[in-house]
């Protein structure tokens, strides 16, 4: 089944069922190197396997910045 989500503002269909951990793999991103924002909440890293991606989810990939 296709799940319709928004990633960094772009609508996108992804094949489900999948978790946030699966989504990171799909996007080619390494866990811990970016934060995943889902519906205005940063998803705690250790819970990626437990959080299912559902229709309508809005994701933003948040890059860590450390400049001052």
């Amino acid at each position, binding site marked *: 089944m296709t799940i319709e989500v928004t990633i960094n503002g772009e609508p996108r269909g992804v094949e489900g069922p999948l978790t946030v951990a699966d989504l990171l793999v799909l996007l080619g991103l390494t866990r811990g190197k970016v934060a995943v*924002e889902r519906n*205005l909440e940063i998803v*705690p890293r250790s819970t990626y396997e437990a959080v299912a991606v559902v229709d309508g989810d809005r994701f933003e990939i948040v890059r860590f910045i450390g400049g*001052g």
Partner: protein
Amino acid sequence: MALTDAQLERYQRHILLREIGGVGQRKLLDAKVLVIGAGGLGAPALLYLAAAGVGTLGIVDDDIVSLSNLQRQILYVTDEIGAPKAATAERRLSALNPDTAIETHAARLTAANAAEIIARYDLVLDGCDNFETRFAVSDACVALRKPLVSAAIGEFDGQIAVFRPDGKTLPCYRCFVAEAPEGAATCTDQGVVGALAGVVGTWAALEVVKEIVGFGESLAGRLVLFDGLSAETRKVRLRRDPECPVCRGLGAHA
């Protein structure tokens, strides 16, 4: 202690606010705040915190003023190139407000000295320029139970958060940032518009004042993402990571 006539006049615009008033101003005058890094973020933050009458301001910076700093580090002037930032900042801030006692720490904050430096302050503002220091600052703040106002910039982006981890729902910095991104760029090798440092450093100073006085909505458990290109801000929820190696044990001892 009652405010003097000069203090009533200097802080009049604070005292007029119901959210601050004389009581809040007293809290600011009694507060001890440590600012990590007197650079792009630290410079505007230090100016506003000294102007606000924060009673004790600690400055951690082991750098000297260089010509390329002056594009954004508004504490310093051209004649001060080559001078140590902490001592230079102390002169400027003391001249701005004699109510504020400045304490300089001309050292690099590391895991080895962080606790010793941070222990004597009520609250820490981290505006440093690298992840290694950010981790050391946060870990010491968690261990010492000190609130941390964290601000960072990169190119056109800013991030501001307040960390008051409680072992229950509120996160620490490491719940958010697990490890430094690859080739972690800092302002040393990355461009930045000076005014962005002003926006984010000043915003961090506002959150410090809110935390000290206790008004408005605390950013604890929230992260503000500022995009200087689109002029959009987003406030997102930041939860404790149940597996965070740093703040995991807090609840048990609290």
